[in-house]
C-alpha cells in the first residue's frame, strides 16, 4: 500500500506504519497514530515492546498434541498426570480452553481446532487441526469426545463434520448442552452457564 498523502514521511516510519496496517482491525489512520505514538515513547519502553513481540514468536509454540499455545511442547495440560485421559474436549480457539478451565468442572484433555468451518471465509476442514485430532485418537484410550464448538451456525457445522469422522473411532461423542445463548461465544459465557452446559452435555 502506498501513502500518497504522506509524501515526505521518513522511510523507517513508513515501514512501521505499513507493518501496523497489516494487523487485524488496524486501518491506515490507526497505523499512523500508533507509529507516531511510538516515536514519542521512551527508548526503554520501545525496547521492552519489541522484546515482548519477539518473545511471543521465539518462546511460544503450538503443543504437538493438543495444538494449544504453549511455551513447551507437550504443554503442561497434556503432560499432567492428574488429568482424565479418557475424555477429550474439542474447542475452536485457545481462549476457549481458558474459559472451560475456569469452570473447574472439566478434568479431561483438550484439542484446539484453531477455527471453524466457514465457506464464506474460505475456511474448510483442511484448514483446521482435524487431521491432528484423528491421528491423536488412533490407538488411544479416549472414551468420550466432547464437541465444544460455539453454538453458532459455523460451530454447529464444524461439530457435525467432525462427528462423522469420529463415529468409527470413539465410543461416545457428546455436544455441550444448549444452555449457551445461541450465537454466543464460549469465550463470553460465565462459569456457571458453562459448567451447566458441560454437565448437561448430550449424546450426538
Amino acid at each position, binding site marked *: 500500500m502506498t501513502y500518497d498523502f504522506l509524501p515526505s514521511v521518513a522511510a523507517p516510519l513508513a515501514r512501521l506504519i505499513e507493518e501496523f*496496517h497489516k494487523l*487485524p*482491525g*488496524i*486501518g*491506515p*489512520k*490507526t*497505523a499512523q497514530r500508533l507509529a507516531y505514538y511510538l516515536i514519542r515513547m521512551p527508548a526503554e519502553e520501545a525496547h521492552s515492546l519489541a522484546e515482548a513481540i519477539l518473545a511471543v514468536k521465539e518462546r511460544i509454540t503450538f503443543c504437538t498434541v493438543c495444538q494449544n499455545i504453549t511455551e513447551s511442547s507437550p504443554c503442561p495440560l497434556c503432560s499432567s498426570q492428574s488429568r482424565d485421559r479418557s475424555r477429550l474436549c474439542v474447542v475452536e480457539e485457545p481462549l476457549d480452553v481458558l474459559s472451560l478451565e475456569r469452570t473447574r468442572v472439566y478434568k479431561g484433555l483438550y484439542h484446539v481446532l484453531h477455527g471453524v*468451518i*466457514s*465457506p*464464506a471465509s*474460505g475456511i*474448510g*476442514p483442511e484448514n483446521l487441526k482435524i487431521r491432528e485430532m484423528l491421528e491423536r485418537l488412533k490407538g488411544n484410550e479416549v472414551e468420550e469426545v466432547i464437541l465444544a464448538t460455539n453454538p453458532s*451456525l*459455523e460451530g*454447529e*457445522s464444524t461439530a*457435525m*463434520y467432525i462427528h*462423522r469422522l469420529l463415529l468409527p473411532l470413539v465410543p461416545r461423542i457428546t455436544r455441550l448442552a444448549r444452555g449457551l445463548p445461541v450465537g454466543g461465544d464460549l469465550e463470553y459465557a460465565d462459569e456457571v452457564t458453562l459448567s451447566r452446559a458441560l454437565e448437561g452435555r448430550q449424546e450426538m
Partner: protein
Amino acid sequence: MYISHLGLTNFRNYQHLELDLPPGLLVFYGGNAQGKSNLLEAVYLLSIAKAYRATSDREAISRTAQDDHAHTQVLGIAQKGQDRVRIVVDMHLEGPGEDGYQTYLRKDIWVNGIPRPASELVGVVNAVLFDAEDIQMVSGPPAARRRYLDILICQMDRAYLRSLQKYQKVVYQRNHLLRLLRERRAQPEEMDFWNQAMVQEGVYIAQRRAQVVQELRALARELYCQLTEAREELAMEYVPSIPLDGEEGEDAHHTFARILEEGLGREVALGSSQWGPHRDDVRLKIGEMEAATYVSRGQARTLALTLKLAEGALLERERGESPVLLLDDPKNLWVEKGAIVPL
C-alpha cells in the same frame, strides 16, 4: 394503541424535537423537505428498529451527528390501553471498525428503561408505513413482495425473525460453498450441514408465509372491493420454489432435502442457491390479469394500498390492538381520492 409522545435527537433533519401526540387520525402537512416523512420514519423505527427503506440505518443519523459521533435517539411513548411503554432507540457511530476504514453503527434499544435486543422490540409497537415507493410491491421484483411479507410476519412472530436471520446466513455460507465446490476446493459432504439447516429454516419460513398470505387474501379481497368500484376480484397466492405439501407422500422437509440433493450439480454450476424461500414470490391478480405486468399505474397504487391496509387489519386481529398506520402521501393521492376516510 397510539404513540402519545415522540422525542427526536439528531434524527435526520431534526436536531431536537419533543412532540405530544393525540390519539386518532393525525395529519402532518407542509411544504417539501420540512421533515414530514422523517416523523413517520421515526415512528416506524420504534416498531422494528430498522429504517423503512432498504438504505442503511446510518442515513437516519443527522449529518452533524455522523461527523462528531454524537448519539441519535428516537424516544417514543406508546399508550396501550392503561399501559404506557417507553421505547428508546439509540444509534451512534463507533469505530474505526474491523477493516480500519469504516466506522460502524451501534444500536441500543431500551424498553421501559431496560436494554433489549432488537428482536424483543418486535410486537411492542406495531406500525404499518405506506409511501409512494410501495407500488414496488405490485410492479417490482419478487424481492419487494417477500420483503412485505417478512416485515409483516416479523411483527407478529419473534421466532420468524430469528429463523429469517439464520436462513440468510445459511444461504450466504452455502453460496460460497457452492462456488468452492465448483472450483474443486471443497468436498460435497461439507454441504450436508448447510442443506440440513436450509431445509429446517426454509420450510418453516415458506410455510409461515404461505399461511399468512392465505389470511391476508380474505382481508385484501374485501378491502379492494371497498376501495374500488371495480367488479374484478383480487386474487393472491404464495408461489413457493419448493412444494410446501411435499411430493410423493413425503413431507415438505424430505421433499426439499431431495430437491437439494438432486439439484446439487445445477447449483454448483450456477454457484448459487436455486431453491428455498429466498426465491419465492406472491402472485397478485385482478380478475384474470397478472398484476405485476398488466395493471395500470393507478390500479397498482390502489393494490399496494390494499396490501398495506390488509397488513394493518391482520396485525390488529393477531395482536388484539390496532397498529399505527403511517401514510406518507406527498402528492395527496389518498386524501384526494378519499381513500383514508374509510379508516
